[in-house]
């Protein structure tokens, strides 16, 4: 046996964990600054920082008006929305995977984005679009679809992982079918709007779009941080958790509410971005292990960095055209999903 035996089976542990968190925080800041600077008009990172610090200090005199508008009004909210959406969806994935003890759990798999797009499409096509009406309808749609899926998949208060996936798939098909039907009735000019809800996008985000996802993500992150130990217990089994002194039903309800709220908040402002909640928590588990005291903060940071970079890809590969963000996350996520499925089969043999 080598003399320098690792003190943990996980790739990163102990002092190196603290370094990892620090490195991710720096990476997030760097990715945000770089993403804000990159676009149809490139702005040097130094200038990006000048504009942002000027706004944070509340003194914007002397800034170039065009640069100021590009950086502060257009790109900063967009990049921050990508960061918050990535963080929120990753957190929702952590909640759901712990809740159903199924590594394939992801808000997208549970028909949430189908519900959100259906809600949005109903609002768009019925013309009942008040201020914030479409986002509000998407929020309600995603919450409703999750509630239906959870209600179908429970028996005596216990959620069954396999039923959850089946119910999610069924609801997604139903939602997409109704959405498809309504699309046929829709005005062609409304169709692009429908695409947004189906595949997700942070393009055209304004500061106002940030409010709901930021509040949801911050409050859920705080609530979940207090439940990290109970979540560890729950991830090993319901009875085991009860035996360790966890109020299993209360914790389940908290996780259901948190994952629904996070997903609805993100989807209603950034559309149906798939697979982030699946990829990020898994990648993080491979690195720091399954302990939620590490999994929650690292997933939050990794999800934010990941989606900022994905958004950057969507608007740079085919300039000046932009792709919906969900196409890139699905292109990365679907193979990852299949690899997980294969690996799981092998592990179970």
């Amino acid at each position, binding site marked *: 046996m080598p003399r320098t035996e690792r003190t*943990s089976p996980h790739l990163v542990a102990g002092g190196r964990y603290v370094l990892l968190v620090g490195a991710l925080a720096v990476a997030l800041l760097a990715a945000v600054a770089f993403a804000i600077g990159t676009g149809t008009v490139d702005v040097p990172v130094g200038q990006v920082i000048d504009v942002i610090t000027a706004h944070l200090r509340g003194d914007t005199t002397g800034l170039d008006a065009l640069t100021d508008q590009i950086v502060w009004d257009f790109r900063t909210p967009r990049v921050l929305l990508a960061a918050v959406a990535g963080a929120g969806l990753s957190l929702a994935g952590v909640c759901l995977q712990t809740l159903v003890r199924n590594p394939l759990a992801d808000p997208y798999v549970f028909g949430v984005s189908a519900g959100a797009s259906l809600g949005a499409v109903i609002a768009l096509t019925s013309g009942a679009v008040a201020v914030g009406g479409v986002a509000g309808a998407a929020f309600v749609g995603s919450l409703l679809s999750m509630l239906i899926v959870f209600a179908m998949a429970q028996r005596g208060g216990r959620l069954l992982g396999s039923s959850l996936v089946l119910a999610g798939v069924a609801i997604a098909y139903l939602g997409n079918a109704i959405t498809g039907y309504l699309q046929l009735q829709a005005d062609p000019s409304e169709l692009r709007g429908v695409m947004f809800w189906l595949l997700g996008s942070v393009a055209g985000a304004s500061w106002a779009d940030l409010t709901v996802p930021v509040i949801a993500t911050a409050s859920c992150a705080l609530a979940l941080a207090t439940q990290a130990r109970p979540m560890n217990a729950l991830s090993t089994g*319901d009875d*085991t958790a009860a*035996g360790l002194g*966890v109020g299993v039903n209360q914790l389940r309800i908290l996780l259901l509410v948190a994952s629904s709220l996070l997903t609805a908040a993100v989807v209603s402002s950034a559309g149906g971005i798939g697979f982030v909640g699946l990829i990020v928590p898994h990648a993080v588990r491979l690195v720091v292990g399954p302990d939620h005291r590490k999994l929650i903060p690292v997933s939050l940071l990794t999800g934010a960095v990941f989606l900022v970079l994905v958004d950057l890809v969507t608007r740079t590969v085919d300039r000046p055209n932009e792709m919906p963000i969900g196409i890139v996350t699905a292109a990365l996520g679907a193979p990852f999903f299949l690899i997980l499925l294969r690996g799981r089969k092998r*592990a179970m043999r």
Partner: protein
Amino acid sequence: MKVDVRGVSVVIDDTPILGDAHLTVETGTITGLIGPNGSGKSTLLRCVYRALKPTGGSVHIGADNVWRSSARQAGRRTAVLTQDHDLDNDYSVEETVAMGRLPHKGLLARDNETDRAIVHNALSRVDMTWAAHRSFARLSGGERQRVLVARALTQQAPVLLLDEPTNHLDIGSQLDLLDLVRELGLTTIAALHDLDHATAYCDNLVLLHRGRVVTTGEPASVLAPDRVAEVFGVRSTIVPHPLTGQPHFVTAPGPAR
């Protein structure tokens, strides 16, 4: 700490699973729950460790009514080896054992030196210190059960509950585990399938059949051949063990009648 189950019944979806179960376990003794599959052993245990709320009756540990106190308090009174342990998550042995500190720690409290010492002592008590930094899921079945005993010890609970703890273990690991449980000297309730193990390791037995307590008492009296024939449908007898002279439960091939 004394465990007192008073008239516990469980009804799930209009189906009675457990009816009016009574049992008392004195401090420091081992009580075995025996009975055929589906007789209500696990259900009864789950009512004691607060995983399943009884439809009627109450469970008392020491002076406290389990279902009137908090989940956290229950975690400090009873430690459990369940059957549902999930192996998909790659926790290390040390992380698994440290979970036992859960009912003692505040919401955001980190593990301190005391917690680490408790985890270390528990691991050395079950001779698993060597595996501290291994992956729990990759241990053998017997090693995993020893680690879960260590986790139960870090809970520092006076009552230990075991739900078919020797399932899927080879015979050496089975006896190792039961010897270890005996040595710990905790107030213990164990659901057991092997009636000879129940005879050899338990102070008292509770025989369950179709959700009812048939009888309770010392192993030799509970496992009277007539009763075993009626409940389990097998021929049996209790003889002095040729090596130890202790009561030894043996079955004979073929049906009871």
